[in-house]
């Protein structure tokens, strides 16, 4: 029991060290740094959901002039 507890503690410490390991990056320019930052920044899915709700409230676009002229739907 005591041995198991010690093992668990050690395993926990190992996983903490692993999670604290940080990757060092080197960027030649500011643009590279910002590009890296942009790549790891995703758009929250809520934006698409909200946009969808807003688009539902928008009136349908008018028929193109050539359809009106030809009397088509």
């Amino acid at each position, binding site marked *: 029991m005591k041995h198991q507890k010690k093992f668990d503690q050690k395993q926990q410490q190992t996983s903490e060290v692993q999670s604290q390991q940080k990757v060092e990056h080197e960027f030649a320019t500011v643009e590279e740094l910002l590009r890296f930052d942009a790549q790891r*920044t995703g758009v*929250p899915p809520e934006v*698409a959901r909200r946009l*969808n709700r807003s*688009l539902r409230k928008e009136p349908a*676009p008018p028929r193109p002039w050539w359809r009106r002229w030809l009397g088509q739907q």
Partner: protein
Amino acid sequence: MDNSLEQRVCRPGLELESDGFAALYRAHSREIYYLTLRLLGDPQKAEDATHDVFLKAYKKHDEFRGDSSWRTWLYRIAINHCSNLRQSWHSRNLVTNGEESTWENMPAMADSPLRVLETKELGQRIQKTLDSLSEEYRVLLLLVADEELSYEAIAVLTDQSADAVRGKLHRARKAFAFSFQKTL
């Protein structure tokens, strides 16, 4: 991407690209969200702004003349939108970017590589650094980071010559590098 959004925006008669508005959103929403996030410095405001930018684009798509790319057109809407938001915010909260005279006399730190640790704080450091710059430098750096935009496109977007963009970007990189080191 929400399926119903795709169905909705691809309806006949919208006359955007053949793939429709959903394709436009898929292709450019990441860049627009990132720009608004770093210009406004707040994820919730960036969500609102990205929504508003695409809604404006939807409503005004017939004003798109095709003399620039869709991305450039969306960037213009986003920059104007963020600028309006920031102006109304600044009128209520006076904020200055007082660092610019300090870094002007510093050695060319922009020529040295930036070494950073990938941590969750990295985004905060970048945000803090951008916040310390003028709005013009911030916009220029964020635009030039998009590889799809040429100096000429950035010049058109920011109403100046390509040479002026190059000159200001040189100073903006220097200012960023100086401020970024101070965020450690």
